[in-house]
Structures are given as C-alpha cells and as structure tokens.
C-alpha cells in the first residue's frame, strides 16, 4: 500500500485511523501526535523539570527520544533492579543511549542502595517479584524527583498498557483504582505530576517508531513477566482489535471521558489527605509508607536468612548517581 501523504511505499498501517504512512511521514506523525497529547492534557508546562523513567525497553527510550526532539530537556532515571543478566543488559542499553545523545541520566541501583535486588527482595518477603519491584520503582521515581527537584515524572505507558490495566480493573470492578487511572496524575504535596504522553499509541506503533528511528532498545522481556495477567489482558484486547480496529482506543478514551467522571462523583471520591511517612518523609496515607513497610519486613527476614548482616539497618534514602554522558 502507498503512503497517504506521498507516493512512497507505506511501512506502517494505522487501521483505526484509516491511515498508512511511509517511514519519514510516520516518524513525523508520531512526534506530532505526542506533542498534541502533551498540549491537550497540559502534561508539561513552562518551567517544569521533567524526569523520564527509563527501563531500556522500546517505550521508555522512544519517549526520551521524542521528548528530546520536541525540545524538552528530560533527564533519564534508570533503576537497576538486579535481575541477573537481564538487568545488566538493560543498564548497558540505557547508558549507551544516553551517552550517544549526550543526555543526562540518573541511576539508582537497588542492591547498592538497599543491599537487596528484586530476586532477594522477593525471597525475603515471600511476595511475587513483580509486587515488590513495581512498588519500589514507583516510590523511587517519586523520591528521586523530589530530591533532585523534578516536578514531572514521564513514563512510556502505551495504549496497550493502559487498556490492559483498565480491563483488569473492570473485570474485578476495582472502584478504588478506576477513578484514578489516566494520562495525567496531578501534582500534589510531595508527589510529582505523573504523565503518560504515549497513552494513545498502540504497542505496535511505538515499536515501529523505535525501529524506524534505529533506537537500540532491549528486546528481551523481564524473566519475571512470564505468565503475567497483564499479558493475558493484552492478548484478549488484541484479538478484539484485530477484528474491530479501534477497540482499544475507544475502550480507554470513552471510559476516561464518559464513565470516570460519573464514577468519581458517584463514589464521592475525595482525595485522601496525605501525611509524611514517619520513616522517610515521602507522602503516604498512613503513618509509614508502603515502601518502608515492605523493606522493613524484607530486612527482618533477610537477616534471619543470612542474606544481610545483622548490623545493617534499613535506610530509605536511595543512592542516586548521575551518569555523566561520557561515562557508563
């Protein structure tokens, strides 16, 4: 098929938009659509300082690339999770990307900061790896932003990610989570604004962008992701999408537009007042934040299992190191 805008051969087809584009016009379209999402939701405003969470996968690296091309100064944050060779390769890919483009990067190594990586954390707490990992990443994104003076945290969540989360929440009618989902989570005391500029691109569209831009991203999946429910939800949604193009976008967008406001009102969803965690000062609804509770428990059990020396005390403050563009 031919590109809609010129006579070149089309390389990416966007069935839900009735559009097919050649490489050059696709890259242009993708960047313009990102700029539009940022404008439409006022994701980034004059004077904001942006931290972009970088895993080394296609979504986060593509996001860093696009933000930079759109003229935003975004500093990367890579969290070294300690999941064997997978994490080592993620670190290599991320530092190489930053170095090649001269972009500022902050790295927090979980094992360096807290003595345990994701596998040991899982072993010590008896919780599945993804639960401690996700909680720690969300906490560290916000803490590093707070300490380093960033008021915006950008993540590469795409349409498939968001539609899968929505489906999971709908299947169980999670009335606590449904009112909170969206492309922008506003700034609150101690909480950076969380933005998802890619929330209307399908996973295939982001991968196409990354490949056409020749971004060397990590293709392999986290070994812990095997069998994750989110993958099952994505598969189900993609079967629907194949038969009915536009399903994923309509599902998410119409929910955000029509249902979420009614839901929030009906539930009388009020913002719970935030306090400061007595251990680390991070915003929390209780006395101690979930991160400190998780790691306190992990330390107690890790010492029993001799994974940590008895003398080691849990220090919540992460050790963030700046990787200058010439290092890594």
């Amino acid at each position, binding site marked *: 098929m031919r590109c809609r805008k010129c006579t070149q051969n089309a390389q990416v087809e966007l069935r839900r938009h009735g559009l097919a584009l050649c490489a050059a016009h696709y890259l242009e379209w993708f960047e313009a659509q990102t700029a539009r999402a940022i404008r439409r939701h006022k994701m980034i405003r004059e004077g904001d300082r942006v931290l972009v969470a*970088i895993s080394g996968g296609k979504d986060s690296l593509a996001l860093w690339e696009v933000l930079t091309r759109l003229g935003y100064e975004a500093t990367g944050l890579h*969290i070294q999770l300690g999941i064997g060779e997978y994490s080592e390769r993620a670190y290599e890919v991320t530092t190489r990307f930053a170095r090649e483009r001269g972009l500022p990067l902050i790295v927090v190594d979980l094992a360096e900061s807290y003595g345990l990586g994701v596998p040991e954390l899982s072993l010590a707490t008896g919780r599945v790896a993804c639960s401690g990992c996700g909680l720690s990443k969300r906490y560290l994104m916000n803490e590093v932003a707070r300490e380093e003076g960033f008021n915006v945290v950008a993540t590469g969540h795409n349409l498939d990610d968001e539609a899968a989360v929505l489906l999971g929440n709908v299947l169980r009618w999670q009335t606590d989570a449904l009112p909170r989902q969206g492309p922008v989570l506003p700034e609150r005391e101690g909480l950076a604004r969380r933005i998802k500029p890619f929330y209307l691109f399908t996973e295939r569209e982001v991968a196409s962008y990354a490949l056409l831009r020749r971004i060397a991203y990590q293709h392999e999946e986290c070994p812990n992701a095997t069998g994750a429910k989110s*993958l099952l939800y994505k*598969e189900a949604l993609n079967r629907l999408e194949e038969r009915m193009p536009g399903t994923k976008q309509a599902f998410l967008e119409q929910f955000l537009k029509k249902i979420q406001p009614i839901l929030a009102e009906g539930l009388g969803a009020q913002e719970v007042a935030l306090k400061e965690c007595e251990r680390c000062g991070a915003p929390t609804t209780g006395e101690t934040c979930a991160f400190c509770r998780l790691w306190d428990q992990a330390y107690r059990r890790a010492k029993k299992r001799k994974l940590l020396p008895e003398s080691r005390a849990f220090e919540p403050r992460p050790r963030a190191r700046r990787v200058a563009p010439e290092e890594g």
Partner: protein
Amino acid sequence: MIVRAPEKRELEVAGNRPLEEVLAELGINPETVVVVRGEELLTRDTRVREEDTIEVISAISGGHGALP
C-alpha cells in the same frame, strides 16, 4: 522463505503471498508484531517472495509494575 520468529525460532514457510497469510498460518496476530525485511517494515498486504527472509519482532511487553 525464511521467517525469524520471536524466541529465536527460525521457520521455513511458503512465500509468494501476502504477509497476512503467512502470519495467519503461524498463528500470529498482526496487531502484536512488527515484521521487518532488511531495513523495511512491512504492512500486512505486502507480498513476500520465496527468496525473502523476514523477521517477526514481538511488540508486546508486560509484567512490569511501573516502568515500561
């Protein structure tokens, strides 16, 4: 033709037909992959030739708590 599928599988399948048919035969949903021939991304209507080698790249990632 040769298909390099995800998880390092290499398969030999019949060519001279639209990519869509090749993916259907392999049980791959076109929405979940990007297909590459050399430097070029292929749309589902592209006719793949007998002498082609194509690479099927999975677009789906998952299981990460917070960072994509």
